[in-house]
């Protein structure tokens, strides 16, 4: 690809694209925060905001893939999978570095399997994704309760705890981990056959089918991947909070969807990408932090969150009038 070609490509994408708008809004919000309080724009706070965003960003990774895959794809079970994963890793590893590896393996396999069940229900039994993943979410919550008998044991192995809360050269490990994940997901989406087909199939499933793409594998696999990424997130959450509890992932269900759409990924599928979600996660975190700084009450916060979402989405997704 020549340089001009790349430039053209970039222009092509950002002219219509929401990424630029999201970045702009995030910067604007940060600036407003800075105007209210100098401390808000201090380097250490910005790093912290980034670290907090990383949790939401990781939680929204699987969500991004599922939404991209089209067919009204959405995964409301990520919260429950995150909780289960944190609990599993905590109980199996029991705070010991030595047991971390088997714990992580088991957790990842379980996460992927739960995602697989979602995918099968959605693809084979044709249950709408919204409802299927919602139902699975309560099943998984049930599994957590039964597995822990209400009292999760163990804690994060020191290695994981360092990853969750430690810093290196003043930069939180979380940000670095997130960057690595972002790189991996970017690679998967950009350079793996799976990722490249995902965008196309998300855009037009019938066309994908007719062009010879193995749709069943791709769609079911995407839900499994979402489970896998949620499991990764759960493991890191354990590192962040050190100890775990039953409902650790709940708070991320709806924000993960919000981060995806604010990042410009179309809920209809096939458009967007993980970089957008990264920006979306940062934007939402900055907004939340800003509202905290501005002493907004819960009620006002809900209203402002909704209005911001509505306005951004109006800009991104206005549909053309037909005929």
């Amino acid at each position, binding site marked *: 690809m020549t340089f001009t070609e790349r430039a053209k490509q970039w222009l092509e994408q950002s002219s219509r694209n929401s990424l630029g708008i999201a970045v702009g809004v995030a910067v604007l919000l940060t600036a407003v925060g800075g105007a209210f309080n100098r*401390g808000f724009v201090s380097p250490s706070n910005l790093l912290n905001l980034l670290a907090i965003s990383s949790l939401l960003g990781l939680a929204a990774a699987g969500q991004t893939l599922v939404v991209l895959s089209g067919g009204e794809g959405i995964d409301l079970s990520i919260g429950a999978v995150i909780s289960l994963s944190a609990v599993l890793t905590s109980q199996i590893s029991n705070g010991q570095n030595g047991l971390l590896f088997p714990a992580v393996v088991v957790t990842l396999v379980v996460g992927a399997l739960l995602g697989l069940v979602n995918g099968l229900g959605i693809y084979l039994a044709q249950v709408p994704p919204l409802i299927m993943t919602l139902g699975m979410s309560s099943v998984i919550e049930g599994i957590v*309760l039964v597995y822990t008998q209400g009292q*999760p044991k163990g804690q994060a192995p020191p290695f994981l705890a360092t990853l969750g809360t430690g810093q290196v050269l003043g930069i939180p490990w979380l940000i670095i981990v997130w960057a690595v994940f972002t790189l991996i997901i970017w690679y998967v989406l950009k350079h793996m056959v799976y990722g490249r087909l995902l965008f196309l199939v998300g855009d037009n499933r019938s066309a994908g089918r007719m062009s010879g793409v193995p749709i069943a594998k791709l769609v079911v696999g995407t839900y499994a991947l979402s489970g896998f990424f949620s499991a990764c997130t759960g493991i890191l959450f354990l590192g*962040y909070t050190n*100890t775990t*509890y039953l409902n650790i992932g709940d708070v991320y269900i709806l924000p993960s969807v919000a981060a995806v759409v604010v990042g410009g990924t179309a809920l209809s599928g096939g458009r967007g990408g993980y970089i957008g979600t990264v920006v979306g996660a940062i934007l939402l975190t900055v907004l939340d932090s800003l509202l905290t700084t501005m002493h907004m009450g819960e009620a006002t916060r809900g209203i402002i969150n909704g209005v911001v979402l509505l306005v951004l989405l109006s800009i991104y997704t206005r549909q053309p009038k037909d005929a």
Partner: protein
Amino acid sequence: MLKKGLATTIVLSLVAVFLLAAGCGTPTGKSTSSSGSGSGKSFVIGVANGYIGNDWRTQMIADVQQVAKTYEEKGVISKLIVENANNDVTQQISQIQNMINSGVNAIMIDPVSATALVPAIQKAQKAGILVIPFDGVVNNPKVTNITTDQYSWAKGGAQWLADQLHGKGNIILMDGLAGVPAENIRAQAEQDVFSKYPGIHVLQKVFGGWAEATAEQKMTSLIATYPNIDGIYTQDGMGMGIVQAYIAAHKKPPLMTGDVTVGFFKYWTEHQSSGFHSYVESNPPGIGATALEFTVNMLQGKKLKSSSIQANPVDTSQTNTVLVKSPLTVTDTNLQQVWNSTMKGKPSSYSLDAWLTPSQVDAYFQ
């Protein structure tokens, strides 16, 4: 073919789950009537717990079950039914109605809402069932709420912080969840204390949702925004999150009220020598077990002393609440002893626990 097999499998598994569910036990209605008439003193008690999704609540239920077991062995309780609603009012109403319909003798409720359950409770009372809301309170003059004295609980911590700061300094208030009754009572106590000290400046009041991760995130922002935090007042379930935020920021946490979890105690014991001071007043999950003691006493016909019953903290026009004082306060002085005797070796989400003994409960009765 595949689809056909799939359909059969699914229908079969539906039947299987129903059978499984049905196989879990005999119909409750029957067992009630038989056991109730048998000894004449054996009670069926229903526990309608509004939420089971966090560790505090699961511990609370475990405590209730533990105490109930001793009563079951004595033949006082024939059966304990525990139902959990997913923070959903209508689900809890449905569970209460099921308890009424299956003929329990008493219903203990950890309410999702202070007001929305009133009609269901009245129905229960009409059916001759004793209703004991606990942990949270219900605004109905005819029930007896059993709850930890949230006001004095919150006041204790706030007062300690104010004293330690000698009435001067910048503090952060990390509160729970807006719109929830307990939160409002605690907020009142905080305000009552801190407003007496003009030298104490509240930098910010934030809601950490009684969740460690949320508290950790909010605190992270606050640490970066305010370089001059002298003290932190926090409530349940968030102390360790705050400490984590400080650890991550490579700073020492300031004076702060703490949390009853093993995780927090561990940190405290390890850092006491390096100048970390805290104060924990237990808000024990054992309140459920305490409430069970009250319930059994009342089922056996005992009457509460009139001095035991105080104004409802949510709606002070009603006098219907037993305010149980926190049974244990931990400060630097007794930290080591408490740690060694009750906390060491427990899972890190375990909360410092205590409930009133039968004799302590007896003191509330005539």
